[in-house]
């Protein structure tokens, strides 16, 4: 399995309120409300840490979940958010919004 890197799109609007992360796509004005797990993923999406490490270090330490299942769910979520321009995903580290 190849590593997947995820990075927050710096051009989207995001706010955390009452423990919820709300994000609005500037492209189509769709509003997303992330649950706590998805919020952890969002916050850790620095473009440099592989997704499997994020799951291992941030998700599996917080929740009793199977790492493989959590990774599959996270990949699905990341691709969904990427389709709305919320996240960037790449098989290589992402620096300043570009993969290198």
């Amino acid at each position: 399995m190849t590593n997947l890197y995820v990075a927050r799109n710096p051009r989207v609007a995001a706010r955390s309120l009452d423990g919820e992360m709300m994000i609005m796509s500037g492209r189509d004005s769709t509003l997303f409300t992330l649950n706590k797990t998805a919020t952890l993923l969002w916050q850790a999406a620095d473009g440099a840490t592989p997704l499997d490490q994020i799951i291992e270090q941030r998700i599996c330490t917080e929740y009793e979940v199977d790492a493989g299942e959590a990774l599959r769910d996270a990949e699905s979520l990341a691709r969904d958010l990427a389709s709305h321009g919320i996240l960037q995903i790449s098989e290589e580290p992402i620096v300043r919004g570009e993969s290198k």
Partner: protein
Amino acid sequence: MSELITEVERLGLIIEIGGVAVRVHTTCPDFLHMLEERYAGYISSGAAPEIQFDVELGPPGNADPHADVHVSQRNGRWTLTRGDFRAEWEPIQRHGLIRSRANPYSIDSVLRIVHTLVLAKQGGFLLHAASAIRNGRAFLFAGVSEAGKTTISRLAPSDVTLLTDEISYVRRLGDGYVAFGTPFTGELAQLGENVSAPVAALYLLAKGSENRMEPLPDGEAARSLLANVLFFANDEELVQEVFHSAFEFVSRVRVFRLTFFPDARIWELIR
């Protein structure tokens, strides 16, 4: 020649909504008369216009007459199109051109869109909501169609001044927000009073078998507010502005879910 210049000058009026004055020029006296009737109460004689639009009457030249609204900006020039109109506006020049048929709906839509763009830069917004003033304070009643905006407007007692039954105009002022009357009407088909007051509360409407008012947590309030904000532009920067404005609003204004049985007793809760 001087008579011609005078005649052209006369064919224009200033429509002032929310303290933003827009001058509309036309060469058609009948169209001007229609605008004077449509925006009665919002025609200003003294305000310095912030924006001027020339209106060319005729088919807008759009490929699809039923096309949805599209609003985009390129190199400082906004383009607003729908099947029934095409408008261009350069904020720096404070000038724009509207091409549409001679009906009030197209101009109305252009004005709404322009106001959403102006307000977005200033921390305000247009809201799909009725609004009214009571005891010097403004109350907003937001909701989708059939949520009860027109119903609660109809039930308003005589000491309530109706600002709109459909689209509320909210501007940031200092640490708070002010709601203005608008000529944008819903089923009530009655122009709001052209007055303003500080916003005291936002109610998210739901019809029910009894009257009940529950404060909403900020997250839910912001989400509900955003669902009712009118914004049309495909513009990442302004979408961000509107997003953050909604959070600022709910941090400063009380937001409630208002379930109401449609009779006049509901106004006993709103003071």
